[in-house]
């Protein structure tokens, strides 16, 4: 009864961990490698007065958004093709599963060789991560449409476009948003891994610069910003999924 709410206890745990980090870093940490959280917070302001860093964060966000949009569009089209037609499913699904099961990090250098070290290779790598969860989820959603709904729409004289518009798309709304959430997680991973590998104008340039010149405060701050960006984008997709999957429960 006297226990605080779990949310409050959670915040207390986080505060406790930050406190331990602060004390441990001050007492034992080598300032070349680690720094207390108070210094990280202090370096936020200085870091974001640097126009280059701000621009790099924008640049990376741009890569993430472009990759996400491309992955969602291609993934939706392919997922529809695979989910709706038995023939394309039989023909393409095993190929897609095989591609999905490949460890994609191994071909990251190939992406850089083909697309260069600029934004294009990051976007392409992000798309290659995000497109598969989208295909899978949309295909699964399209397969779960009851055949009787399609048949009755057709028997009442709906043409192909009308069936898509009034039966298939409304049915796909929950899986579309679920796929978007999974695609966002995957795109973030793909773009950030590619950024860390080699980067010209994105955040990867600064993460490696801060590591090589032993500036832990700046590195922590930049990683904190990227983590916050990732959490925000993931959370937006999760909220959208919750909101738009509600109609089918009712």
């Amino acid at each position, binding site marked *: 009864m006297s*226990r605080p709410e*779990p949310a409050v*206890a*959670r915040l207390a*745990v*986080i505060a406790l961990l930050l406190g331990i980090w602060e004390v441990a870093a001050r007492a034992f940490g080598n300032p070349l*490698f*680690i720094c207390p959280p108070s210094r990280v917070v202090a370096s936020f302001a200085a870091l974001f007065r640097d126009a280059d860093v701000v621009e790099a964060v924008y640049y990376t966000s741009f890569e993430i958004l472009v990759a996400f949009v491309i992955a969602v569009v291609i993934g939706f089209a392919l997922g529809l093709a695979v989910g709706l037609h*038995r*023939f394309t499913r*039989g*023909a*393409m699904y*095993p*190929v897609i599963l095989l591609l999905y*099961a*490949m*460890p994609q*990090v*191994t*071909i*990251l*250098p*190939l992406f*850089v*060789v*083909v697309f260069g070290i600029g934004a294009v290779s990051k976007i392409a790598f992000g798309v290659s991560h995000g497109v598969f969860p989208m295909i899978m989820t949309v295909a699964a959603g399209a397969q779960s449409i009851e055949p009787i709904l399609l048949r009755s729409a057709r028997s009442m004289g709906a043409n192909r476009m009308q069936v898509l518009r009034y039966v298939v798309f409304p049915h796909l709304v929950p899986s579309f948003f679920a796929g978007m959430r999974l695609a966002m*997680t995957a795109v*973030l*991973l793909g773009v*950030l*891994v590619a950024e*860390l*590998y080699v980067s010209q104008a994105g955040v990867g340039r600064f*993460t*490696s610069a*801060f*590591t090589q010149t*032993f500036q*832990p405060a700046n*590195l*922590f701050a930049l*990683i904190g910003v*990227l*983590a916050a960006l*990732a*959490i925000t984008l*993931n959370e937006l997709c999760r909220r959208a999924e919750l909101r738009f999957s509600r109609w089918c429960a009712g």
Partner: protein
Amino acid sequence: MNSRVTQRLVQAAFVASIALLWHFATASGRVAPLLLPPMPAVGHELSALAADADFWPDLRTTLFELVMAFLLAAAAGTAAGYAVSRTRYAVRTFEPLMAGMYAVPAILLFPLYVLFFGLGPGSKIAIGATIAFFPVALSTVTGLSGVNRLYLTAARSMGASSGQTFRLVMLPAALPAILAGLRIGANAAFMAILGAETIASFAGLGHRIVSMAESMDTAKMFANIVLAMSVAAMINIAVSAAEKRGWKHEQA
């Protein structure tokens, strides 16, 4: 029946058309061999790789990193999952915290780990273990806290001690979820280690691929990518087989 044959034909045609496209693009000289090496060259490098077997030290490094990372994550993940699953209050406090941290791409920590642990295997083990920890811990929590209360009450009313309840009721009931978490963790750790080796390292399969790419030896790079993918496939098969055995053991 007939459509199944045609589907197989379409698949075969898809693979064959990619191979043909590859062959003609490189044979006609339209695509520079630097971007896409001709197929025979890759085949040649692949057989050279098998003959020399100079990939062994790198393979050993990567597998060592994977095993260490997996053991760390398995031990820490199941322990943390068990500790959290003890009370409902702890589950409600810590599970959202862990799930939230799991959603952040943990590869972001890699530059920090390079700073802490250096460019050697240490930073790869750390990143692999961090990434594998969350699925293991979360599925352990799910498995242990999802045990039907009725079974626990029944076991206790029949006089089982708390040790017996854990060993004979909770563990068997939670085992499938824990095994699934371990499988996801092993795969995630392997991807993370390959990625980390690609980003910054001295040795390992990821490092091999990068050094070939940087010396513009594309045919060799393709051969090494094939090698890394077959290792990944073998790990996948081994882990799935282990998971199936665990299931059988549980049913027996």
